């Protein structure tokens, strides 16, 4: 009989809350209080997340974000700046020593990305893992992923682009100079794709949830059982949001 993991859907949360939930689940799982968990989520308002090592003011046009009502947050994971709008974001939290998770970090990226690729396949999209942390379809990026390991626990979160607005994304990012903005936009348009672009019609978050969920179940041979955050996780979420992700000291720390 297949192992049961918890499955969460949390829609329309702020950037700080989304990142606080991921960390809360990581801590709760690391303390043995909750089972391995897969969460699908969306962002409201739209937001930019930056990697742990990035400089906020060097990556993001904060004034433009404010003008357009775009949220921003520093992640606990490395990697690059991501504009979260029209995407399915996933996170998986699982003990480092779980038999399904390779000890080697790069191998574990590949394995978890396998679940995302199966989810895409369930929607009729062929894709491959492109190290270090991307998934590409037809040579173009459709998913970016980032992993951290704390408390002997793996947290990997990532995106599946349902639609993409490269112009809007670039209007929010700092570019070396305005002259090359157009060139960068056209380059990125060549390198990025989306579910909508490949299938020719828009697929909503709700419409892609089942396909993606089945992808995780197939990859890890588990059953994902719908659940909710525990009271302990909700307390941790509040705590991490205040201490970290909604705190300017954290977001501006680099």
């Amino acid at each position: 009989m297949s192992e049961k993991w918890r499955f969460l859907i949390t829609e329309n949360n702020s950037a700080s809350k989304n990142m606080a939930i991921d960390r809360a689940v990581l801590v709760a799982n690391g303390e043995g209080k909750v089972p391995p968990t897969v969460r699908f989520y969306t962002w409201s308002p739209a937001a930019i997340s930056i990697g742990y090592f990035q400089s906020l003011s060097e990556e993001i046009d904060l004034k433009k974000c404010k003008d357009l009502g775009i949220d921003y947050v520093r992640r606990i994971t490395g990697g690059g700046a991501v504009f979260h709008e029209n995407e399915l974001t996933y996170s998986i939290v699982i003990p480092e020593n779980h038999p399904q998770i390779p000890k080697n970090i790069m191998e574990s990226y590949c394995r978890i990305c396998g679940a995302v690729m199966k989810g895409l396949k369930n929607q009729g999209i062929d894709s491959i893992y492109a190290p270090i942390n991307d998934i590409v379809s037809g040579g173009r990026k459709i998913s970016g992923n980032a992993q951290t390991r704390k408390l002997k626990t793996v947290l990997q979160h990532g995106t599946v682009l349902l639609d993409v607005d490269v112009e809007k994304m670039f209007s929010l990012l700092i570019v070396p100079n305005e002259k090359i903005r157009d060139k960068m936009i056209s380059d990125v348009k060549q390198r990025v794709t989306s579910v909508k672009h490949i299938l020719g019609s828009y697929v909503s978050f709700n419409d892609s949830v089942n396909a993606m969920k089945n992808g995780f179940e197939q990859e890890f041979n588990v059953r994902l059982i719908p659940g909710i955050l525990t009271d302990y996780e909700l307390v941790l979420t509040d705590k991490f949001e205040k201490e970290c992700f909604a705190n300017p000291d954290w977001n501006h720390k680099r």
Partner: protein
Amino acid sequence: MISKSVYKIPDGKLLKISLDYNDKNEKILGLLITGDFFIYPEEAIEILEKKLVNTTLNEKILMDKINNVIRENKIEFIGLNVEGLVTGIMMCLK
């Protein structure tokens, strides 16, 4: 003296260094290592940045120092490597 560099690690990520150094004795006063790479554990970046203060800006010395910090703190780089980090730091002098 404050200087910056941007260096794309071959087969890796984009590394940005902001370096404050004494141009008389060429020692590091402070530095910020930023970019879209991965370091495990993440908090080790702050240790690395602190340990590099007062280090002489010389490739061999930087390489040894960084390797020591990596060994002592069991740090793993992904999309970044010691050679690239040293290159990025030394580029600030040019």
